């Protein structure tokens, strides 16, 4: 009996992750070189359509691993389900794409089976009878060929882009699909997934803001940020800051303007208590109008300000907020 290769494709919420095609290409290529038999598996609940999509490609067999406990995704369920299947199917080599989901559960799965993972591989090589998997080292400057010395199953994950997904070979006829009902005992799943949400990569795109109220060290204390936020709110603008403010954690780093933060060019840039070091200026000098409030008459920010207000921002900002509100109410 030749050895078996199993590609576990990835689905999330019933959608096939495109990186799965790349892994399938890797599987097809290894199978061609070794003469091993290539199978594929999809794991989830109600994912038969994905199984039949895979079955159109050149694979010997497709397994549709089903259990209601697999929806929604949890690392506990996926690792328990796959362990159960792999223990009976006994492939030599298990291939997966190196996705976030796989990264989440594969350490648990491999540990549960007492095996190891060669992760994030960019290729493979057959050296005589030995299968070598290539991993990058020193940020890609070096590549290391790694082989397994443990018993099967051997777990390998491939980096995105390591193979060309569009090169996946279609099968002469559709491969048989076997549905496997996994028994995932109650109590296995200890994770309780909450509602899925997308964390916006940047809560705010300051580069699109027309009005920016930006604070510097002159704001003195974290609680005073609120004052600037009120002004920004009244003006319908965004709040931003110079480096020391974000460095202290008073505002998130994505609100930082300057050479180590964002570069903005709003219609109006209101600088409160910002001295105007060149590192900040380079991030906002494209603003159409700059109003600067600073106690220090010598502050370099005044050199580029269209309106320079010398004074204490705590005296100036509160009445300004009132005036803005009044003016807005008037229109």
């Amino acid at each position, binding site marked *: 009996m030749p050895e078996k290769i199993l590609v576990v494709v990835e689905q999330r919420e019933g959608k096939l992750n495109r990186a799965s095609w790349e892994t399938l290409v890797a599987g097809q290529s290894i199978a061609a070189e070794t003469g091993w038999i290539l199978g594929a598996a999809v794991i989830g609940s109600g994912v038969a359509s994905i199984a039949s999509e895979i079955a159109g490609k050149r694979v010997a067999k497709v397994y549709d691993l089903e259990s209601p406990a697999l929806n929604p995704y949890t690392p506990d369920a996926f690792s328990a389900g796959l362990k159960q299947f792999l223990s009976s199917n006994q492939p030599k080599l298990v291939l997966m794409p190196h996705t976030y989901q796989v990264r989440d559960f594969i350490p648990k799965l491999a540990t549960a089976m007492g095996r190891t993972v060669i992760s994030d591989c960019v290729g493979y090589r057959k050296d005589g009878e030995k299968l070598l998997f290539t991993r990058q*080292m*020193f*940020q890609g*400057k070096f590549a290391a060929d790694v082989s397994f010395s443990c018993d099967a199953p051997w777990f390998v994950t491939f980096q995105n882009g390591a193979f060309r997904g569009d090169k996946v070979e279609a099968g002469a006829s559709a491969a048989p699909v076997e549905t496997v009902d996994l028994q995932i005992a109650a109590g296995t799943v200890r994770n309780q997934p909450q509602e899925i949400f997308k964390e916006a990569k940047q809560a705010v795109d300051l580069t699109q803001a027309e009005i920016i109220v930006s604070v510097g060290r002159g704001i003195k204390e974290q609680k005073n940020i609120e004052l600037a936020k009120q002004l920004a709110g009244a003006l319908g603008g965004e709040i931003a800051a110079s480096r020391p403010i974000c460095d*202290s*954690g008073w505002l998130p*780093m994505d609100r930082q303007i300057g050479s*180590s933060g964002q570069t903005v060019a709003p219609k109006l840039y209101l600088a409160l208590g910002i001295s105007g*070091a*060149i590192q900040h200026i380079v991030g906002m000098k494209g603003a159409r109008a700059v109003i600067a409030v600073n106690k220090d008459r010598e502050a370099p920010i005044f050199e580029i300000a269209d309106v320079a207000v010398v004074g204490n921002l705590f005296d100036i900002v509160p009445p300004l907020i009132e005036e803005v509100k009044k003016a807005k109410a008037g229109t």
Partner: protein
Amino acid sequence: MNPRKSVAGLFMLVFRKTLEGIERPQMPADVVIVGGGPAGMACALRLSQLIDRHNASNPDSQLSKENIYVLDKAREIGQHCLSGALLDPRSMRELLPDFEKEAPLNSSVNKEAVYFLTENSKLKFPITPPPLRDHGNYVISLNRFVKWLGSKVEAAGITVFTGFAGSELRFDGERVTGVLTDDKGVDKQNQPKSNFEPGYELQAKIVILAEGTRGSLTKQLINKFDLAKDCNPQTYGQGVKELWEIPSERIAPGEVIYTMGWPLTSREYGGAWIYGGKDNVVSLGFVTGLDYPDPRLDPQRMLQEFKRHPFVAKLLEGGKMIRYGAKSLPYGGWWAIPPVAGNGWMILGDSAGFLNSQRLKGIHLAIKSGMLAAETAFDAMKKDDFSAATLGAFQQRVESSWIKEELWKVRNFHQGFEHGFWRGMFHAGIQQLTGGRGLRNRYPGTAGYTRMKKLVDLPANGGAEAHLIGNAKGDGKLTFDKLTDLYHSGTKHEEDQPAHLVIHDTDICNSRCIREYGSPCQHFCPANVYEMLDDASAPNGKRISLNPSNCVHCKACDIHDPYQIVTWVPPEGGGGPNYDGM
């Protein structure tokens, strides 16, 4: 809640340390050279030449270059290299006899002058003192020169890992057994981020330290084996440099000017250089000995005051400052050099202290030390013996080479100046007549930081140093405040990482140093890394705060803090200044 605030509400600084309990990839190596400056690159290139020659005539006993690596913390080769710079070509001619045909040499020195400055006038030395005669040397950009030298190393088949710092040495008893590279992707709290990449354990037969002045691994090594016990304490200078573009025909390419005197008083050691280069680009800088008495002095300010001298202001008028940088240099001379070889290790260049402080030159010595270390490493590879018995030959090679010959003649030079400029000139004169001996064979030295005086012992207004007290304001044309200068260093770091300036006890900063010395870190740091911020809850109303991402890697804090509680460790590899063209 802000995680950086402790329960008591005090602002906590989190310092970088090697993460524990992490499985790290291991890699065996024959030779690991830490630092890709002139010393490290010359070492790699020489080693490659020797191996090539050996392999050509010994088909049966080939040596491999595959496991020889150079680590450099800069993102690109040469990015952290800063010097005046004048190159004495002696060692390069030995390394690559035809180098002058292809190396990026700006211009050949054709005119020198030395001036003694007073506040408003200048006095030209009637003859240029012999040590400052630079005919035959080249004005270079060390950054460009090292970039070129590095390309030779890579072409020779030696791997240069840029963006990787050596963060710890590995020991086995009396042996150095390897280097750990920096952990990448660690956040401000010292926790791994999603892009965490553990440092590599490079298990090396030979570790060659070529980290530049006050190398962080070199410091670990010296402390571990108490290598400096029979040496004079190393003393340092702080060089602050600007590159200017000036209107044409004010200074010719290859024209070299040195100055002594103003803005320094006779109590500080130091001086300035001005080198004319091609395309109306001028390199100028000021070196301040890190042994001045007044803790409020600021080497970056020193350069600004120097530029205000009519002689210099006239030269620069209408010009534009284009680059800035700062670097410390080892002044201590022959008696301050620790043993440079042992079991599994060698130390090169500025890390060892191979610098001629009288000539203000070290590049040629760094290169020569790299070559001699390469010859030693080559013998060790042939013999397959990496113990002190074989590597110790590096020590002898240095002592029988022109490195010692050159440094021996100036072995007491800097110590002679410890009691001021005029006594220094007297000692320098006697030493010149006695082959470097002066009044005795070995002048003792004292560590510069111990010469710093407490504020109570100094006039409140600075006295004779009043014009040097505090940080520069800058007029934005001729003179610049520190942040503006810093901007021109191109310095960049990953912001979300722990502070790599490890202060072992911040209580000393907030309680003692601020009262006793007025927090000199704010002044001697050329990059505004150290700040004392208002904080009503701190014992003296201010607390220490760090801007690690400003750091230009000069090591002045590690060297000069009066309590010796700062340890500079490398930040995440790839960060630092970008000394392009410097």
